[in-house]
């Protein structure tokens, strides 16, 4: 009897999964065709490309096609070609763009401009940085912006161009150009907080005090994307900044081993230790969940807070949720009363490889991307916000209200923290973010103490430093 019932259920499940998989591969199958078209078009156009403004009028552009789609790129390329008659831009788009461009780069024939994003793809940028294989873009940002009003760099959000993600060698030269930016921090169910009159916590103490409220509402206090502890960066990095300021953050990102003996470390990782060791704080089974499973559990009311970024709402638009669920963004609480709430930001990157065939036109196209018209177009087609001053307002008609509010909050008062690890030495076995974040699973499982963890990281940071000095 039982068997008969479960077999059809299993079959249905399996069917559902195979359908899902089918969809996935369907998406991929479109890409090779696209790139093939692009190549073919390129071959014909290069024969008649010879004009006055640009010696070479042909541009190969490779872009990441993720949640934002490729429509923006197709449209902006068309607009650019209209304004610069005779030019020809070929767009190659793929969710796995790194895999597509890698063989071309190895063959010494890279695309002229690449927009690389998505965690599967960004490692290729680290490789290019390690190899010094990017074109210096400083002159692009020093030159006057297309729609006037001073140099282009004044249009970009403050601090972005100086950050390591854009100036990787710390010599003040910009090698990566900023594109869309995202804001990350803790999220909560706004409806629940409004209905039960729960105050939104401003400090960690207030947040931990909500544990009782969480329990009373039948949920854990906190969950995260267990299989990918890297998401915890979104609360760890702003917290390091909260406690130790920019100096501590520099220690953390520049591999100063002393960081792991500092008070900042003890306070920030103390938060995680507290979550791991206090009853009801960490949602049961969190460590074993992937990002979708954890985020779904959060939306179904199994946990009160979860770290994530501005893409959250769009990413989970089809996921089941508890009645009346509404996204609310909290940012990252401060440590003491009066500390401003913080948030982590990250900015996607565009590069021009050093071996690009047509860097001049690539730079012109890059500059064009920062015009108001293009920023607005990007918001309309991709629902994304570029790291340009005033971009949230240009994007307002096109993005969800919650998302707009998050961007606006960063624009007005919330402290935005960002950063990235210094490149490790070429050939190093260490992947800094893996080394730092992966062991947190063991802390959460109570199988690793903070002392063991800090000893381990102290040694790793010492090693990384040594490798860099060799």
């Amino acid at each position, binding site marked *: 009897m039982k068997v008969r019932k479960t077999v059809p259920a299993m079959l249905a499940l399996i069917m559902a999964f195979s359908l899902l998989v089918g969809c996935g591969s369907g998406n991929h199958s479109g890409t090779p065709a696209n790139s093939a078209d692009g190549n073919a078009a390129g071959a014909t156009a290069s024969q008649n490309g010879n004009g006055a403004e640009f010696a070479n009028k042909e541009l190969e552009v490779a872009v990441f096609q993720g949640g934002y789609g490729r429509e923006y790129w197709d449209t902006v390329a068309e607009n650019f070609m209209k304004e610069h008659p005779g030019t020809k831009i070929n767009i190659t788009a793929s969710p796995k763009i790194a895999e597509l461009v890698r063989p071309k780069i*190895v063959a010494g024939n890279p695309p002229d401009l690449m927009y690389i994003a998505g965690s599967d793809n960004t490692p290729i940028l680290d490789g290019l940085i390690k*190899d010094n294989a990017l074109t210096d873009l400083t002159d692009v940002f020093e030159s006057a912006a297309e729609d006037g009003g001073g140099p282009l760099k004044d249009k970009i959000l403050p601090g972005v161009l100086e950050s390591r993600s854009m100036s990787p060698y710390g010599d003040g030269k910009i090698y990566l150009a900023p594109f869309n930016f995202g804001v990350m921090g803790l999220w909560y169910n706004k409806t629940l907080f409004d209905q039960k009159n729960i105050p939104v916590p401003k400090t960690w103490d207030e947040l931990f005090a909500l544990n009782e409220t969480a329990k009373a509402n039948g949920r854990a206090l906190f969950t995260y994307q267990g299989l990918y502890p890297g998401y915890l960066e979104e609360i760890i990095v702003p917290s390091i900044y909260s406690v130790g300021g920019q100096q501590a953050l520099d220690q953390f990102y520049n591999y100063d081993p002393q960081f792991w003996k500092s008070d900042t470390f003890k306070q920030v990782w103390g938060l995680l230790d507290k979550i791991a060791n206090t009853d009801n704080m960490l949602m049961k089974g969190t460590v074993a969940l992937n990002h979708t499973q954890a985020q779904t559990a959060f939306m179904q009311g199994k946990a009160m807070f979860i770290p994530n970024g501005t893409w959250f709402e769009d990413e989970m638009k089809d996921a089941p949720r508890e009645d009346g669920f509404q996204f609310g963004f909290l940012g990252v609480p401060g440590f003491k009363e009066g500390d401003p709430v913080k948030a982590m930001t990250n900015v996607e990157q565009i590069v021009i490889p050093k071996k690009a065939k047509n860097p001049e036109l690539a730079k012109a196209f890059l500059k064009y991307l920062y015009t108001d018209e293009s920023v607005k177009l990007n918001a309309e087609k991709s629902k994304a916000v570029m790291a340009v001053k005033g971009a949230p307002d240009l994007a307002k008609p096109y993005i969800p209200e919650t998302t707009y509010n998050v961007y606006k909050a960063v624009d007005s008062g919330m402290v935005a923290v960002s950063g990235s690890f210094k490149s490790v030495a070429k050939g190093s076995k260490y992947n800094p973010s893996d080394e730092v974040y992966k062991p947190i699973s063991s802390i959460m499982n109570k199988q690793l103490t903070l002392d063991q963890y800090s000893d381990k990281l102290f040694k790793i940071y010492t090693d990384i430093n040594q490798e860099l000095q060799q």
Partner: protein
Amino acid sequence: MTMKLRRRIFIACCLLPGLAIFGLFKVYPTVQVFGKSLFLWTGIDDAPKFVGLQNFIDLFHDDVFLLSLRNTGFLMLAVPAVTLTVALINAAILTRAQLKERAFYRTVFFFPSILSFVVIAILWSFIYHPTIGFLNSGLERIGLGQWAMSWLGDQRTVMGALAVTMIWQAAGYYMVMYMAGIDGISPDLYEAANIDGATGFRQFVHITVPMLWEIIRITIVFSINGVLAISFIIVSVMTAGGPDRHSEVVMTYLYGQAFANSNFGYAMAIGVFVFIVSLLLALLSNRLTERRDA
């Protein structure tokens, strides 16, 4: 004479395309892997730096690699042993016991083999799901709630949980192979044994296993190599190497070094090492299972 020559030319022509493809897609990349393993190379620049055997020396000082090697070793031992035992016993029962539902069971047990590995991995990560999972809910239902745990999130259980998935996936496939083999054994042997009063178990040990021995030897090699390939997909989807790298296997580590860490030369060294180890294992298992009379 000319007839013979023509024949040879014809055979050579027939072999050529196959050899060319084999050379281009198997031999050439393998040689490249061996070559690149001696270089410091990010995988994107065009000027790899020759470092000799340094990559191989580094391998043995890399704790994560050694951990992943241990995990892979566990899978390579446990999964083939259990899979083949289960497959053999099931095959013997299904063929010898003359069950009415024989065809049905054969289909059901074979079913996992036609599913894609990704589907299997997703299916099992929901079976192990700590709260809504079939396994934990089942334990709670029968009153063993205190045994429920997050199987994939705990370093003590994660490798076992992955091994079970891989065994479930492969057992049916080998069972069908063994069933075909058993069907080829002359029924006379079993009849004679029956007349002599041998029990089912003795018949299994003294007739089925020896008569299948050559098939078993081949399946051992298949199974060991299968583990290497499948472990990559299962681990990537189900645990991403977690918690804290306790389910990292050499293939996931190789991929991470090559594509996430831009350490291509080093990744190729891992590849060479795995190649040599699996070759040795195959030879070893062949040698160990060789019958003295053969």
